[in-house]
């Protein structure tokens, strides 16, 4: 998952009108599998979106256009409680991750030689979420920590930190080191250089990392499933029990809104990464 953004950013960096020789002839049929792939990826989502405007209560029969499920969604207490919990968790986890991830990335880039600390910092992004989830459950239980939103925040902070670290590290590699050297040559200390020279240059990357950490935390299910109290479900846990015990068309409306939020966030993060990509 770490790499979900990395290749796209390589693509951006490489936008320079560099050599792409037209010499190799490309058969037109090459785009067919791509379009088929998109049909596969988008058809299910499209159906959910269309059905969110369905007048009927039947999930499988279209009975004309209606917006009725949207107000019903906002009247649903369980969903609203889940949404509130999710926002609290995502905000907390993002705050932890943004601070720790940025510091870690800076420390790793400037003070470590080998990849060991780097690998350790990014490990939570690769570790199976199931392992992290039950591991944290056993830890909290051993330490007699009552489960609740605080435990989910701490848990989500772990993988969110890994993502922020990875993204800020990637941005940092693009910065011009001579600016920092200049700052040090002029007598600024490590902390001052970091605050006045490095941080402003990294800002777009940090914001992109924070946005991704936030989105990931909103969507995260498995870890939250193991580390929260049944009375404090996050939104994905509410959706899980809805899908498990009988779906109402509200789910379609909820899905459509979440989809919209994700699209906006991803595009915003994309723009920010592009920003840092060009200011190298």
């Amino acid at each position, binding site marked *: *998952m770490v*790499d*979900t953004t*990395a*290749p*796209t950013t*390589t*693509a951006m960096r*490489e*936008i320079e009108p560099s*050599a*792409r020789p037209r*010499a190799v002839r*490309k*058969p037109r049929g090459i*785009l067919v599998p*791509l379009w088929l*792939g998109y049909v*596969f*990826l988008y058809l*299910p*989502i499209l159906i959910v979106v269309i*059905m969110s405007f369905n007048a009927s209560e039947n*999930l*499988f029969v279209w009975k004309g256009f209606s917006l009725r499920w949207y107000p019903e969604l906002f009247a649903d207490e369980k969903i609203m409680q889940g949404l509130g919990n999710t926002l609290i968790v995502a905000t907390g986890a993002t705050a*932890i991750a943004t601070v720790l*991830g940025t*510091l*870690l990335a800076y420390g*790793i880039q400037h*003070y470590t*030689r080998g990849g060991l*600390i780097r690998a350790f*910092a990014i490990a939570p992004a690769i570790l*199976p*979420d*199931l*392992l*992290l989830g*039950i*591991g944290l459950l*056993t*830890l909290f239980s051993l330490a007699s920590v009552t489960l609740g939103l605080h435990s989910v925040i*701490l848990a989500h902070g772990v993988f969110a*930190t890994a993502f922020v670290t990875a993204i800020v590290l990637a941005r940092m590699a693009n910065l011009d080191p001579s600016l920092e050297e200049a700052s*040090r040559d002029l*007598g600024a*200390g*490590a902390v001052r250089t*970091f605050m006045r020279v490095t941080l402003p240059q990294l800002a777009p990357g940090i914001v992109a990392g924070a946005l991704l950490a936030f*989105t990931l935390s909103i*969507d995260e299910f*498995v870890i939250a499933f193991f580390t929260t109290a049944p009375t404090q479900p996050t939104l994905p846990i509410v*959706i899980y029990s809805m*899908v*498990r015990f009988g*779906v109402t068309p509200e*789910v379609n409306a909820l*899905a459509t809104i979440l989809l919209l939020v994700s699209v906006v*966030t991803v595009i915003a993060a994309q723009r920010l990464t592009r920003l840092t990509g060009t200011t190298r």
Partner: protein
Amino acid sequence: MTSTNHPAAPAARTVRRGLAPVPFLAPGMIYLILFMALPVGLLAFYTFFKRGRFGGIVFEFTLDNWVKLFEPLYVGVILQSIVLAGIVTLLALLIGYPMAYAIAGLSPKWRTVALVAVVLPFWTNFLIRTYAWILLLNNAGWVNQWLQGLGITDAPISMLYTPQAIVVGLLYMYLPLMVLPLYASLQQLDPSLREAATNLGATPWRAFRTVTLPLSIPGALTGCIFVFVPAMSNFVIPELIGGGKTIMVGNLVRDQFFEARDWPFGATLALLLTILLVIVIVVQTAVSRRLTEGPRRG
């Protein structure tokens, strides 16, 4: 902080300066040690002890949990998970490769758009994407409606709650994770290599087979790991679109924690899963190192 005294030190990047790294590295490292290394270590430790009567553990050393893994029931579930995740990975490779190849061949502007289009579904809620397949595969669902509308079948075909549905669900979930690393390795290829092949008279297919394909294997292996790893431990898809009839390792772990209340055995299963994944990653790294060092030097 002590580094203020040495403003002229060259090559700031690699020099260790006393306590300077501490304020940057310590907070994050302490956090990750507490909430990642410690929990995982604790699980590893628990695998050698007995279960408590109502969950939790009793500190009496035993190897029973590791022996239990070899009972036919559990061996069966583990093998079934490997087979299902393997099929998913293979299908993702077969579908993802042409997609990544087509994207790498687009103009830079369209490449970005095409890539974002691959990533976007991945950023929509995991459970919602699972739910979408319930809408599609249900007996009254859209696929059955289309099949009947087109006169292909008369009666609905049972698609939901089958192992095939699990494969489709997992494939749908993780396909973007295959396309991205494949694309990354394909677009890094020096186009002049393929050009040279064509100039020397190779047909496009031969140029692809002898130049592009071998050089993209490391990317393909990374993609396979990105798909295989989460597919192995997923327990939501087998439950929601597999109907709980086909059990994978993830389901077993979850059930040990929440139903059987056998935490030590659940921990053992989860650790086995992780060991398997580490083996896969080590093999992948070794293979791609050999591959990239081989042809490029020669």
